[in-house]
């Protein structure tokens, strides 16, 4: 009986669960050191072994893209690593900016995959 229980545990533990997370959920814009630009700091954690790259984008409430500047729009984020990054927008876009989203970029996987996207919101 114990033998079967251990085998069942091993099977369950061997299932690789992979995750994507980004914080904060409700970021705030702050004045940046650059004239006319606002900045917010985001943090992303990659627990997806099948994903190496994440794309960042900024949208208004109708999902139209808003121009922004960041170190990279496409981050290489190793498995189990964390990155903090700044996102800058023009001060004039403050009111219409609604979401910052990060999307997993899937490689040309042979197996079916799940693309994940997390969006933080400005309130």
């Amino acid at each position, binding site marked *: 009986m114990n033998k079967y229980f251990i085998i069942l545990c091993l099977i369950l533990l061997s*299932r690789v*669960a*992979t*995750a*994507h*997370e*980004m*914080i*904060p*959920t*409700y970021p705030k814009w702050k004045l940046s050191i650059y004239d006319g630009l606002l900045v917010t700091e985001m943090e992303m954690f990659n*627990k*997806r072994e*099948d994903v190496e790259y994440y794309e960042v984008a900024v949208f208004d409430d109708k999902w139209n893209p808003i121009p922004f500047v960041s170190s990279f729009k496409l981050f290489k984020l190793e498995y189990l690593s964390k990155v903090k990054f700044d996102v800058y927008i023009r001060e004039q876009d403050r009111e219409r900016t609604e*979401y910052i989203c990060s999307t997993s970029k*899937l490689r*040309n*996987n*042979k*197996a*079916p*995959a*799940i*693309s*994940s*996207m*997390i*969006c*933080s*919101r400005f309130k």
Partner: protein
Amino acid sequence: MLRKAILVGTMCLGATAVYAEEVPITGNVQSRCVITTDTPGVYGNPNAYTLTTASADGGVQPIVRYDVTLADAYYAQITTPTSFAQSPSLSDTVTWTGSTEVSAVSDATNMGSYETNKVTFGQTTQYDLTATGSTWFKSSSTASYGGDKAFPGGTYTANIEAVCIAK
């Protein structure tokens, strides 16, 4: 002689300063939504012109888990495929059908209404994550080749899109 050497050695070791440092571990608890790929799907091929994740046809339904730490702060949107990410060259149209349902919840009392309150538009299903905890969503996807023609041999891959949007 040997006894003296051992005694001196022991005293020297005892006299060695012991340094203790407190190593801090800091943590930051924030509200968050985590999307976890629990089970990647597999298409079964019950006949020449159909690919399906239905278990009765040899497929595996993909399962995505959402963990939220703040109640009533997120929407989960899951979109089943409408195209192949990878396939052999296809000369005819592919008809896609798909659906998503709650597979399991960590809090049956507060999450019990998720399935009845879901909103479906096109291939996308939206859930209002009103409680904290984990929810597992199971999707099904079927691709049928035009005019009941046989799918050409090769590898077919399609992707589910799981989105978590702050309210």
